[in-house]
C-alpha cells in the first residue's frame, strides 16, 4: 500500500536534489534544469495530496505551475542566449559586470 | 489464463507486426506510385512486379556495416533511432480500428479491437507525437556533423511550430465529441444525416481536417515539409551519418508515423471503422478502417511526388502566419457552433 508519506518523502528528496544542483553546478543551463527539478518536486506534492483528498485542485495548480515553468524557461533561455552571445561562456561566474 | 487476456496479447503482437509489414508494403507502393507519376516502371526485378523489393532492401540493410563517426556520442547515437521508432509505434496503441467482436463466438466476452482504451487517448496521441521529435534531434546532435546538426535544429523548430496547429485541430474534434477517448469519438460518428451523408466530423469541420493533414505531414517530416532531411541542401539531414539497421529504424519510424497519423485522422474525421453507406455488417469494420487509412496514405505519397518543396523560411511563415490563425479561427467557429446548436 503506497501511502501519502511515500510521495511526500520522494518529493522532499527531489527538492533537495534540485537544491544541490543549484548550489554546485557552474553552468546556467544546468541551474535552470535544477530549478525545474524543484518545481517538479512541488508538482508531485500537489498531485499526491490532491489525490488523497479526492480533489482535482492539485492537478489544476500543477497545470498553472507548468505554464509558469514554460514562461520561466522561455525568458531564462532567452537570457542565456543573450549572455552567451556576449561572453561565449555559460559559467555564472563570468557574469559579474552589471553593464556591457 | 483466461481467453480474453490471450486474445488481447495476440492483438498486441498482431498490431506490432502489422505495423512493420505495413511499412514494408508502403515502401513498395511509394516507389511504384512515384514511378508511375514520373512515367517509369519502378522496381521490377525482385519477384513478380518487384513485390519482393522491400524484402531485398531489408536484407541489404541488415548485412551492411554499422558505421559510427569517431566523434559521435556513442550512447545517444544508438539511442536516437530506437527512440524514434518507439514513439512511432506507441501512438498506435490508442487507435481503435474496429467495433467489439467475439471472434465469431470464440470468446465469451467481446473484446475491443484496440490495444488500450485510455480515457485521455487524444492527449496521449499528442504527447507521443511530441516525443517523436527527440529521436531526430538527438540523431542530429550526437552524429557530430554539421548537416545532421542543422537537420536536427530544423526538425525541432518545425515540429514545435506545427504541433500547435496540430493540437488546435485535435481540440476542434474534442469540442465536437465532448470526449477525449478515441473510441467514443468514433462512436459519435455513427449514422447518417438525411440517410445519405455519414455523420463524419470531416463534414462538420473540413478546415480542421485540412489543418490536421498539413500539420501531420509536417510532423512526419514528409515532403513538401521534409526539411530535417532536405536531400537537396543537407545531404540527408539528421540521418546523414547513419547506416545499416539504425538507418532502417529511422526509415521504419517515418513510415509507421505516416500510418499512425493517417489512422488517427481516420478515427477523428473519417468515422473510424464505420462504413460510409451503412450496408456492410459491423464485423467488417476493420476492412473499412484499412481502406480509409490506405486512401490517406496514397494521398501522402501522391503529395510527396507532385508538390515542390518549400523553402525553410516559407515553411515557418506558413506555419505561424497561416496555419495557426486558421486553426484558431476554426476552433472558435466549431466551439461557437456547438454552443449555438448544443
Amino acid at each position, binding site marked *: 500500500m503506497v501511502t501519502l508519506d511515500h510521495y511526500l518523502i520522494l518529493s522532499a528528496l527531489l527538492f533537495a*536534489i534540485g537544491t544541490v544542483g543549484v548550489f554546485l553546478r557552474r553552468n546556467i543551463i544546468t541551474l535552470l*534544469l535544477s530549478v525545474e527539478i524543484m518545481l*517538479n518536486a512541488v508538482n508531485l506534492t500537489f498531485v499526491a495530496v490532491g489525490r488523497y483528498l479526492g480533489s482535482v485542485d492539485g492537478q489544476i495548480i500543477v497545470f498553472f505551475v507548468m505554464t509558469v515553468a514554460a514562461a520561466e524557461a522561455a525568458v531564462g533561455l532567452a537570457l542565456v542566449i543573450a549572455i552567451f552571445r556576449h561572453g561565449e561562456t555559460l559559467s555564472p561566474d563570468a557574469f559579474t559586470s552589471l553593464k556591457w | 489464463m483466461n481467453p480474453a487476456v490471450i486474445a488481447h496479447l495476440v492483438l498486441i503482437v498482431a498490431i506490432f507486426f502489422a505495423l512493420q509489414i505495413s511499412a514494408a508494403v508502403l515502401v513498395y507502393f511509394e516507389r511504384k506510385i512515384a514511378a508511375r507519376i514520373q512515367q517509369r516502371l519502378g522496381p521490377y526485378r525482385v519477384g513478380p512486379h518487384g513485390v519482393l523489393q522491400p524484402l531485398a532492401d531489408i536484407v541489404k540493410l541488415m548485412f551492411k556495416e554499422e558505421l559510427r563517426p569517431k566523434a559521435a556520442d556513442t550512447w545517444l547515437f544508438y539511442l536516437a533511432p530506437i527512440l524514434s521508432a518507439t514513439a512511432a509505434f506507441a501512438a498506435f496503441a490508442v487507435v481503435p480500428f474496429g467495433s467489439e467482436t467475439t471472434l465469431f463466438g470464440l470468446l465469451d466476452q467481446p473484446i475491443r479491437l484496440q490495444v488500450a482504451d485510455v480515457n485521455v487517448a487524444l492527449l496521449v496521441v499528442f504527447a507521443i507525437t511530441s516525443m517523436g521529435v527527440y529521436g531526430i534531434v538527438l540523431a542530429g546532435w550526437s552524429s557530430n556533423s554539421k548537416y545532421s546538426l542543422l537537420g536536427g535544429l530544423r526538425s525541432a523548430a518545425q515540429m514545435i511550430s506545427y504541433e500547435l496547429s496540430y493540437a488546435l485541430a485535435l481540440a476542434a474534434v474534442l469540442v465536437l465529441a465532448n470526449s477525449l477517448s478515441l473510441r467514443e469519438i468514433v462512436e459519435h460518428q455513427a449514422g447518417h444525416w438525411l440517410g445519405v451523408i455519414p455523420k463524419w466530423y470531416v463534414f462538420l469541420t473540413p478546415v480542421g481536417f485540412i489543418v490536421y493533414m498539413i500539420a501531420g505531414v509536417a510532423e512526419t517530416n514528409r515532403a513538401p515539409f521534409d526539411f530535417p532531411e532536405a536531400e537537396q541542401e543537407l545531404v540527408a539531414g539528421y540521418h546523414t551519418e547513419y547506416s545499416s539497421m539504425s538507418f532502417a529504424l529511422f526509415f521504419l519510424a517515418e513510415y509507421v508515423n505516416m500510418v499512425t497519423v493517417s489512422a488517427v485522422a481516420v478515427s477523428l474525421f473519417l468515422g473510424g471503422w464505420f462504413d460510409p453507406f451503412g450496408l456492410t455488417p459491423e464485423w467488417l469494420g476493420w476492412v473499412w478502417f484499412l481502406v480509409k487509412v490506405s486512401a490517406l496514405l496514397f494521398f501522402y505519397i501522391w503529395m510527396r511526388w507532385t508538390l515542390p518543396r518549400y523553402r525553410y523560411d516559407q515553411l515557418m511563415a506558413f506555419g505561424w502566419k497561416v496555419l495557426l490563425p486558421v486553426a484558431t479561427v476554426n476552433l472558435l467557429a466549431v466551439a461557437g457552433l456547438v454552443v449555438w446548436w448544443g
Partner: protein
Amino acid sequence: MDIWLFYLFALVIVGASLGVIGQRSPMHSVLFLILSFGALAALYVQLDSPFAAVAQIIIYAGAIMVLFLFVVMLLNASHEDDDPGARAPVPVGVKVSGCLLALLLLVELTWALTRVGRPAVEKDAASADSVSSVHEIGRVLFTDYAFAFEVTSVLILVAMIGAVVLAKRKV
C-alpha cells in the same frame, strides 16, 4: 504490486535527477531530466491523475525540454570544465557545505511534510473517478480558477515578448 511500481519509478526519478546534476555535459543533463519527467508522469498515472500525467509529457517533456535541447544545440554548449569563462573549480569545502545544506533541507522538508498536523487521509476508490475526470478538471479550471487562467495567458504573452526582446540581435 503498487508499492513495487512506486519504488521502481521513484528509483528512476531519483537516479535520473542525480544524473541531471551529476553530468558535466548539458545535453546529457537535459536528457536525464526528460527521463525523470517520464517516470514522474508514470507516478501521476498511479495517482489516478492521467490529465496531470499527459500534461507533464506534453508541456514539460514535449515543449519545455525541446526548448532547452534547442538552446543547447544552438550554443553547442561545451563541457563545464572547458568553459572559458569558468574560474577556479568549486572548492571542496563549498561542495560539502552545499550538500550539507541540502541534507538539512531534506530533513526539514520531510519532517514538515510528514509530521505537521494534517487530516488522516486515505486513498479511497470512491474518489478515484472524480480525480481522474477531465470533465471535472475543465469545469473547476474555467469556473473557480477562471481568473487565474486568464492571468496565465497574460503571463505567457509577457514571457513571449520578453523572450523575443532579450534574444533579439542588436540591429
